[in-house]
C-alpha cells in the first residue's frame, strides 16, 4: 500500500514541485489519520492518529509560510500525482476494513508510509531542492518523521 519511492529515484524536481510533493505527503497522512479517528476504538491508535493529524498540519503550516515568503507556488507533478493515486487506493482499502481488521491495517500502513516518505525526503526532495531554506525545512521535518516511524512501530507491536 505504501508509496514506491524508488520508481522516482532518477526524477528531477523544481523547487515548486518539491514543495508540492512535501505538502501532498503530509496531507495524505492527515487523511489516513481522519479515517483512523472515525473507525478505531483503540486508545493507542487514536492517540497516534491525533498526533499524526496535528504534526502533519504543523508541517503544512511551515511549508505554507515558506512558499509565501519565497513567492513560490507548489506545482503538481508526476510524484505528487502518484502519491495521491496510491493514497486513493489505500483509503479505499482502509475504509473497507471491518472494526476488527482496521487497527492492524492502519498501523501497518503508517509504518510503511513513514519509511517511504523518510526515504523520499532524504533521497529525492532534499537533494532536488535548490533553495537553502526549503532544504532546511525538509531537513528539519526528518526528526519528526523518524519519531513518527518509531511511534508507529511501537504501536504496531501491540496490535495483533
Amino acid at each position, binding site marked *: 500500500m505504501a508509496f514506491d519511492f524508488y520508481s522516482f529515484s532518477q526524477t528531477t524536481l523544481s523547487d515548486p514541485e518539491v514543495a508540492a510533493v512535501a505538502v501532498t505527503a503530509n496531507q495524505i497522512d492527515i487523511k489516513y489519520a481522519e479515517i483512523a479517528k472515525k473507525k478505531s476504538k483503540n486508545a493507542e491508535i487514536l492517540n497516534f492518529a491525533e498526533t499524526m493529524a496535528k504534526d502533519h498540519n*504543523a508541517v503544512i*503550516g*511551515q511549508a505554507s509560510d515558506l512558499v509565501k515568503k519565497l513567492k513560490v507556488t507548489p506545482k503538481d507533478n508526476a510524484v505528487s500525482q502518484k502519491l495521491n493515486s496510491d493514497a486513493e487506493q489505500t483509503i479505499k482499502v482502509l475504509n473497507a476494513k471491518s472494526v476488527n481488521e482496521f487497527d492492524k491495517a492502519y498501523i501497518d500502513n503508517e509504518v510503511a508510509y513513514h519509511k517511504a516518505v523518510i526515504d523520499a525526503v532524504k533521497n529525492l526532495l532534499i537533494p532536488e531542492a535548490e533553495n537553502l531554506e526549503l532544504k532546511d525545512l525538509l531537513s528539519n521535518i526528518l526528526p*519528526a518523521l523518524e*519519531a513518527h516511524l*518509531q*511511534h508507529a512501530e511501537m504501536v504496531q507491536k501491540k496490535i495483533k
Partner: protein
Amino acid sequence: MKFNPAELTLKKGDTVTWINNDFTDHDITEEKSKAWKSPVLNQGKRYSRVINFSADYLCSIHVVMKGKLKVK
C-alpha cells in the same frame, strides 16, 4: 524529536526549565505514575519545575521522546 540533553543530573531542589524549540507541540509527563505533567507547550513556550526526586519523563504526545532527571 528529542529532549536535549536526554539525561540531566541535578541537585535536589534545582529548577529545570524545558523550552520547546520544535515546530510541533510537546509536553513533559512523568513516566512511571504520571505524577506530574506540563501543559501542552507550543513552539517557543517553556515549562519550569522544581525537581526533588529522580524521574523518567516523556512527551505524552510523542511517546518515543523520553528523558531522565537524576537527582544526586
